[in-house]
């Protein structure tokens, strides 16, 4: 009874927040509502018995995305001070009615499709459980991510790198000089950053058998870097060129190398010997965590660090 009410309130909150974030007139309000949307989403994952996703959402949806959006909002204001004035601009009149009607029709069709899905789909849960002891890890989600469907994850770290290349190629710079962080923020970051790095390492390590994994760990690592950037830290110029790029490609390169080796030895992409799988997965995850973290930090900055320093 009570848990049913919890589900209803959560779903209503989700819809209300999404609607508010997309319809409210004030852009800043929209961003805060979207951050709250991410928070509620993480609670929904818990209700759906998906703590692994809840952890990823807590780190990314409720944390990093919020910081990204807030930083972008500030830069948007600097580039175009009247952005709040024209942000309410939207389609009106007959096109608006047309779009609304078509969206409603699509909603009905999607709802019907979901409603009529057979309720006894076997899924792949049994296959995963049957092969889990050959995967080298005991957390089924990590087994799927790094072993059974490792190619997904390989492409995914490539997507991250591509996104960063895209962002860097646009040649933006952030001319904004920040005020000194002050004693409180400085102390806070000095206390929290080591703790965040520790939590990232913990998540990476326990990911093999419990909640955690490379993505969650990478996101927490990225949060540490973002906090340092916000507290006024900048990458030393000596590290900005080659060392940074090596760190960024370490994860994708290791992954790709192992993919090629397994392809040549086994005839199949990312097919690990069961007795080696555990160690290989930990190795891939470690480099992937570092690269994912570094890539997300770089995406937060949005411009190559050396270009920013010249300003």
């Amino acid at each position, binding site marked *: 009874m009570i848990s049913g009410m919890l589900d209803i309130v959560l779903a209503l909150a989700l819809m209300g927040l999404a609607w508010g974030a997309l319809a409210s007139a004030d852009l800043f309000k929209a961003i805060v509502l979207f951050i709250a949307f991410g928070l509620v989403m993480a609670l929904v994952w818990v209700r759906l018995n998906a703590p692994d996703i809840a952890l990823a959402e807590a780190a990314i949806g409720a944390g990093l995305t919020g910081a990204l959006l807030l930083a972008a909002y500030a830069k948007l204001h600097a580039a175009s001070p009247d952005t709040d004035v024209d942000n309410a601009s939207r389609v009106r009149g007959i096109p608006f009615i047309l779009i609304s009607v078509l969206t409603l029709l699509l909603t009905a069709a999607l709802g019907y499709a979901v409603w009529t899905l057979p309720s006894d789909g076997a899924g792949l849960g049994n296959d995963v459980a049957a092969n889990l002891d050959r995967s080298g890890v005991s957390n089924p989600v990590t087994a799927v991510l790094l072993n059974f469907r490792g190619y997904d994850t390989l492409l995914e770290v490539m997507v991250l790198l591509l996104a960063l290349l895209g962002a860097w190629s646009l040649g933006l710079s952030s001319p904004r000089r920040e005020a000194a962080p002050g004693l*409180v*923020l400085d102390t*806070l970051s000095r206390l*929290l950053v080591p*703790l965040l790095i520790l939590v990232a390492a913990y998540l990476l390590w326990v990911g093999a058998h419990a909640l955690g994994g490379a993505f969650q760990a990478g996101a927490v690592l990225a949060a540490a870097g973002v906090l340092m950037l916000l507290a006024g830290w900048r990458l030393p110029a000596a590290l900005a060129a080659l060392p940074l790029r090596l760190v960024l490609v370490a994860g994708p390169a290791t992954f790709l190398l192992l993919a090629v080796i397994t392809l040549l030895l086994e005839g199949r992409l990312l097919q690990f010997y069961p007795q080696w799988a555990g160690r290989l997965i930990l190795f891939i995850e470690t480099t992937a965590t570092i690269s994912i973290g570094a890539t997300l930090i770089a995406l937060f900055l949005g411009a190559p660090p050396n270009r920013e320093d010249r300003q």
Partner: protein
Amino acid sequence: MTPSDYLSAALLLAGGLFFLAGTVGLLRFPDIYSRLHALTKADNVGLGLTVAGLAVQAESWAVAGKLLLIWALVLLAGASVSYLIAHGALQRGMRPWKR
């Protein structure tokens, strides 16, 4: 219900009460500074009592320790962020509310 269950329930309910008080304060208080004051009651005391209530039930010292760590983190973050917001508000010339 064992005695520790009663203790835990009492602590949890008290925690919920502070969360309610914090929310009411956030909604009713007139300016940013007094709202900060209300918010930190939910942060510190509300979560503290909730953590205490759950720690009474904890199956091991490690679990109780992790609960306390979470509370300590929220305390540290809450205090620092509240300072940063109040400081920023003063710098931007927001005047405290006067009757």
